[in-house]
Every structure is written in C-alpha cells, then in structure tokens.
C-alpha cells in the first residue's frame, strides 16, 4: 500500500519531529525560565521576538532561512569557509527551520508553567540547600511537567504537519528531507487523492494514538463539590 519512498518519508518525519521536540525542550526550557523570572527591560521584546517567526508565511520564512543557511548566506557561508558544508537541503537545515518555527509553541506554555509554580517551592528548596540548577531540575521542572507536556505535544504536532518551511529549506529530497507532510502535499498536488487519503489517514491515526497515549496520563483538577 505504501511506496518505499513513503516509508522513507515516515522515517524522516519521525526523526524530524523527535529531534525538533527534544531540541525545543532543551532550548525552550531555559529560555522560558529566563523569561518567567527576569527583570530585564528586554523581556517583552524577547518574548515578542520568539513569537515572530510564526507570523511569516512558512515558505517565506523558509526562504529567508534558505538564504541564511545556503552557501552564500551568513551561516552557511561561514560553515563553508570553515571547511564544512552549508545547511540548506540537509536534514540539519530542516531541523533548524522546524525548531525556529515551533519555538513559541514550546516557550510560551513553559513560561506559563514556570510562572504558575510560584516562588514558595523554589524558596523552600533553596533553604534545603538546593542550588539554582538543582532547584530547576528537581522542583521547577517536575512541578511544571504539565506544561512541558503541552510544549512537547504542540511542538511535535506542529512539526508533523508543517511543510512550508521544510519544503523550502529542504527541497523535498526523498530519504533526506522529504517528510510525510510533503508526501501528502505532493500526492494532493498530483491529484492522487487515493494516496493522499491513505497517507493522511495514516498520519492522523499515528498522531492520534501518540497524542492519546500522552494525554491519557495527564491528571485532572478536582471539581467543586466532587
């Protein structure tokens, strides 16, 4: 039912989603923590900046990233002069694009989550001898785990469906940068609806199961009078 190319696309997609989610959590968590606690005048500006990639159409954002990461761009160019290769049309390139594009979906929920903890648990941890990093990992993160979950699922799902940025930076090269969403898009563009339906159904089912498993573990809040 599925072509080998589709299987490749599924593989690339899963790799991209997982890496994006992991990197977003690694990157977004300290950023969100800083944003939740800083007194800096630039806080609001940084928050706005984080959300900014969202407002550009994905392919246009993709285009600018292409320029930046390509051989003549600042990033890609630098890499080339350092003896490496530029990042356009590579897995690393689409990963950077996905991370940037989903950043606000990770940062904002995390920031809210950290804010909701309040200062008391962190203060208590400090008086028990826990330093800043210790407090962060043993108190803040576990207490904000609901928000970590939200950040992860939003980032994961958004990366799953996104194709504009990925298409532009990645060039849809099978086995390397062609993700499932591009394959579905292609099928639809080719008016090959049967294939589009099958792939969509597959993607939806897969995502539903993943999301359902994740959400089923979430706790609810007690209701008044219950």
């Amino acid at each position: 039912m599925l072509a080998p190319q589709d299987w490749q696309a599924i593989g690339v997609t899963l790799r991209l989603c997982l890496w994006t989610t992991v990197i977003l959590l690694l990157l977004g968590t300290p950023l969100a923590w800083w944003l939740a606690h800083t007194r800096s005048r630039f806080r609001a500006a940084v928050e706005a900046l984080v959300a900014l990639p969202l407002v550009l159409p994905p392919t246009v954002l993709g285009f600018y990233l292409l320029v930046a990461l390509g051989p003549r761009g600042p990033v890609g160019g630098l890499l080339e002069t350092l003896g490496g290769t530029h990042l356009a049309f590579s897995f690393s390139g689409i990963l950077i694009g996905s991370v940037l594009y989903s950043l606000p979906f990770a940062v904002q929920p995390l920031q809210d989550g950290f804010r909701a903890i309040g200062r008391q648990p962190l203060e208590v941890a400090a008086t028990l001898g826990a330093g800043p990093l210790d407090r962060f990992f043993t108190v803040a993160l576990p207490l904000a785990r609901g928000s970590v979950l939200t950040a992860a699922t939003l980032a994961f799902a958004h990366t799953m469906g996104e194709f504009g940025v990925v298409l532009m930076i990645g060039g849809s090269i099978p086995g390397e940068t062609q993700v499932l969403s591009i394959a579905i898009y292609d099928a639809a563009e080719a008016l090959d609806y049967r294939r589009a339906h099958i792939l969509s159904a597959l993607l939806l089912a897969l995502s539903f199961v993943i999301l359902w498993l994740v959400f089923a573990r979430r706790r609810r809040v007690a209701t008044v009078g219950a």
Partner: protein
Amino acid sequence: MSLSARIGHRVGAFTLAVDFDLPGSGVTALFGPSGCGKTLTLRCLAGLERPRRARIEWNGELWQDDAFHLPPHRRRVGLVPQEPTLFAHLDVRGNLAYALSRCASPALGLDEAARLVGIADLLDRRTDALSGGQRQRVAIARALLSHPRLLLLDEPLSALDDPARRGIALDLRRLARDLGLPMILVSHSATEVERLADRVVLMRDGRNDAPRSLAEAVADPDSPLHAGAGPASVLDGVPAGIEDGLLAVALGADRLWLPWHGAAPPASLRLRIMARDVALGLAPARDLSVLNILPVTIESMHDGADATVLVACRSGSGARLFASITRRAATMLGLAPGMRVHAHLKAVALLD
C-alpha cells in the same frame, strides 16, 4: 558562634528595621503582634529577601551586606515557613529525602525525623492527602533533616493539637541542645515560647527590643508575653527525690513538690509559676491543700491592671517569684516591700 543582624528593608509601605546579636546556640523566640515583621525578618536571615541595607554575619562569616548577598542555598539555614509548602510532586518520603540527600552531615535518619513529629505512618502519602497539621509536621521534619546551621521556625506548631505541640516542642528543645542547633522561633503562644525559648526578642512595628533571657522577659510584668495569662516566673531547678508520687525540685535551698508520673526525672527541670497562681499569706495556711509554701521577702510592688498588684518576691535561696493579688487583699494584709510573707504556690507547671 553568633548571629549578628542589622537589617533595613522596605516592602510597600512597611519598614523593617531590626538589629540584634544572638549567641549561636539555644532557642530565641521572636514575639510580636500579627504584621509586625517577624516573617520578613526570618526571610531576610534565610536570604530569601534582599534588603536594601543590611549586615548579617554568622559566626564571622558574612551573609549579607549592602554589596554582597550570600544566596540562600549556601547559608545552610533551615526554614519552616508559616504556610507549610510541601513539594507537590513528591510524596511525604520524597519531601523528607529531598532534604536529607542535600545534607552533608545528616544528624537524623529519615525515619527518626518522621517518628519525632508523628508522621511515620504517612510516609507514602501524596502531599495533598494530608491534613493541615500533618503538612506542618512534614515541613518540620524536612527542615530538621537538612541539618542546618540555624533553624528558623515560623509558627511551626500553629496547626497542632496541644499534646502534639507539647511533644514536638520538647523534642525540638532537646535537638537544639543535643545537636547544638540554634533556632529562631516565631510563635504567638506564650506557653510555646516559655517551653522552648532561652531568650526572647520582642518585635513591634518592624522594630525589635534587645534580646533578653527568657527569665528576664517573663519577669517584666508589662511584657506582651503576658497578654494571655499574665506575668509568670520561670525557674530552672534540679530533681531532689520522689516521695508519695511527688517530685521534689530543688531551687537552691528551696524545695517545691510537684505531681510526678514516676519515670526517672531529667537532669534539669523548667518550672513556670504564674503570678496569678501565687497567693501571699502572713503565715503558712493550715489545713489547706496547698503543698508548696515558700517563705519570701517582698522586694517591690507594682500596680498592675484592673485593681491588681503585682508583688515581686525573693525566696531565701534567691529565686524570684511574682504574685498577682488584688489591691483589696494587699491592703487587707498590709503588704509592703521588705515584709516577710509566705508564698502559697497553688499550681506549678512543669514546662518540660
């Protein structure tokens, strides 16, 4: 060892200006009305506030001055906050282990601490499945397990029933002594202060009086400690034999008898004698169920509140006793400083 703190801090319209030096051992009570700045003071000591002007030193080590601020996790100061904050993502055991695993030199085991505050059977509970008093006890055990250099207790027993309160207070006092763990205790209960504290710092409107020993503090007839039950004398004595189920306590040459449950008495005993429980007579009353009658000399007489007179007396062995009697009785008996009278002690409370 000692703690010296000079703190100038403003939050909103409130100004905290405290200044005290405390020895590095024993229990100091911070006592004052609601909103006078007790919690804020503890927070400054713990390093949780950054006062604008302050100099806090612990045993020669600088904790804070106008330029420097030692972060809380480096102070090794334990805090039991007024509203106990437990880690909601950990169960009770997890909360205790959190403290223990960060303690370089544990003085207590986890189970021991739990037993001490009576939560040994709650170790596997989620924290939101605890009652108010249980939460408070977990917070105390957790702070103890971190074996701090200084333990700050912000009304740690307010949600507990009397027997539990008494038991934990005595254990705290024992720990303060055995571990050499100095404590600062905020409490609204004069009994708790008398039971636990070695010295008292009175606070009002963000300022503090100089620290005084507990005996001095309770000897002040106007002390806010007495707002509840009136002035009292607190005397430390040693056991001197048991007879008829009564324990003799020697205060120098004086001897008082109190009901005793029979076990071996501790090496020292703290007694509280409320001024209102002391009657003065020209002679020892006969055929009266009062056992403890001490000959004393009246040192001074102060007009107290409400037509009462507070009579300060001294026993032969030098113990200071207060008697609160009505002015009518004082007149009737013709009491005056220098007179030798007999103090009838109706009730003597053992604070240990």
